[in-house]
């Protein structure tokens, strides 16, 4: 793919004036193309080519094993939009994405503002708040499965606080399971967002903060007019990461609920998994994956343009 582009574009830098430094840059432009080759080969082999194959297979009824593949046109895609399970899964992905992105970033930003101050424990707190983000999601999911069980720690704490009436089967109740998963993911990655916001906060010049204090700006106005503009790149990065990550969420759901109870926490990722590995319905599974891809691309590009425009 890149190879053909290069052959055309490199041509203008024909070897003419050797002594001219500009010529050096031309040559540098042509030779340095080869620096892309190793990454391009790996990327092509592992990501791009199999994905294109996958796109082709989504127009077939392939079961993933046999040599027989019948062309079925857009049938699989029609199924995606008519099957209540997959429509529900896409809807769940949206809820997860919205819930996780907003709550995780809100808490992350508050934590960053809290830690980025004169408090003595700030270094220790920073380290501990980020810790859940490095824990293997499968391990964290098992831990939370235990915590959220009917006799689990969360319910015990509620009873200790005199809120026994609020005890729930957090992962077993269809109305609560999705929210419980949001809570698990937020617990894991709020520290991640915090660290990214912290990086942005540390880029705010201390003199400007001091000057604004001298001029009598309150905490909120100082945040809005002085700190916030410095957080542009941090917003872009952490919002994108949490949005894309939550739309594709798999490990936490597979371990804690497996998509259940019923279809309550089924997402495109778990649905793809079961269609491919339990029902051998590969063409359908891949069609769901493609719809998810378009989903992720559309939502994140809207978000990206929204954020970069606001930054300017």
């Amino acid at each position, binding site marked *: 793919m890149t190879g053909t582009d290069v052959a055309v574009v490199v041509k203008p830098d024909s070897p003419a004036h050797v002594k001219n430094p500009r010529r050096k840059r031309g040559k540098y432009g042509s030779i340095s193309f080869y620096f892309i080759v190793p990454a391009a080969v790996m990327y092509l082999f592992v990501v791009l*080519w199999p994905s294109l194959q996958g796109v082709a297979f989504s127009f077939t009824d392939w079961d993933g094993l046999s040599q027989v593949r019948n062309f079925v046109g857009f049938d699989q895609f029609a199924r995606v939009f008519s099957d209540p399970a997959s429509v529900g899964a896409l809807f769940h992905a949206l809820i997860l994405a919205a819930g996780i992105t907003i709550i995780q970033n809100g808490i992350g930003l508050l934590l960053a503002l809290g830690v980025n101050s004169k408090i003595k424990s700030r270094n220790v707190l920073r380290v*501990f708040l980020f810790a859940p983000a490095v824990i293997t999601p499968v391990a964290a999911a098992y831990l939370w499965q235990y915590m959220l069980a009917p006799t689990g720690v969360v319910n015990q704490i509620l009873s200790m606080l005199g809120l026994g009436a609020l005890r729930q089967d957090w992962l077993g109740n269809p109305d609560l399971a999705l929210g419980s998963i949001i809570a698990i993911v937020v617990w894991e990655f709020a520290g991640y967002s915090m660290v990214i916001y912290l990086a942005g906060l540390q880029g705010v010049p201390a003199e400007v903060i001091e000057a604004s204090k001298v001029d009598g700006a309150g905490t909120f106005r100082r945040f809005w007019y002085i700190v916030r503009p410095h957080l542009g790149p941090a917003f872009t990065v952490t919002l994108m990461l949490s949005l894309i990550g939550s739309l594709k969420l798999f490990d936490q759901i597979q371990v804690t609920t497996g998509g259940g109870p019923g279809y309550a926490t089924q997402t495109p990722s778990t649905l793809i998994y079961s269609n491919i590995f339990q029902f051998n319905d590969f063409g359908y599974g891949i069609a769901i994956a493609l719809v998810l891809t378009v989903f992720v691309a559309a939502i994140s590009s809207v978000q990206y343009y929204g954020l970069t425009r606001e930054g300017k």
Partner: protein
Amino acid sequence: MERYTYKTLIREIVMIGVSLLFFIPLYVLINMSLKAPTDLSSPLSLVTHPTANNYINAWNQAGLPHALFISALITVCSVAIVVVIAGMAAYPLARATKRWSRISFYVFLIGLLLPFQLALIPLYSTIKDLGLLGSPLALIIFYSGHQAPFSIFLYTSFLRAQPAEYEEAAAIDGCGPLRSFWFVVFPLLRPVTGTVIILNVLAVWNDFFTPLLYLSGSANATVPVAIFSFVGQYVSQWNLVFAGLVISIAPILLVYFIMQRTIIKGFASGLKG
């Protein structure tokens, strides 16, 4: 900044409280892993007679020593490859002003959006045809390609923000592209290389689904897969399971606690692009 006032003290107390709340699950994890299975006290009450038996049993029964080795092998090899190939690719992507360079950059970015399931089965067939199923090499190849787009994105945006004068000076002095990459550009990338390494190590070490697929049925399991089958076997023996979980997350937490300063700094420098 400001002096330590009573407001700061309130803030300090609130922040410590919030952090303790965040820490409850990890407290439960470690606390339970130290309790004997016969100890039926609440998971929240501190262990009175700590025992190492759960750890010894988990270490012996969950296949963790081998899994830790396989995970380390896969992580080190694939992250080293990603750093080199992504750093190299970022050089022309950030510097060449030609159209192909912009197009290639976008082609790499597409990789960030593709769900891994899309490529999964076609690639599975290829890996199977190559006879690499069950081999750590299959995962090293997979991660080298799969982790490339994000690393290229970080490297390229970082390099674009750096002045090109050093390379130009090197080029005028007769330095070829290969040498100017290795001696000028790659050292320039050092701050973001820290970030790239950290993010990739985390992603590769913690990945569950890919090794589940490519290594299943073989003697090689990575840590998350070993934990998965371990919990499947010993479900409801939570003391044992939790000891296994602690062992599985200990290496990454250890590295994190030792390098936390670098890690947090790495995030800061990786973001300036």
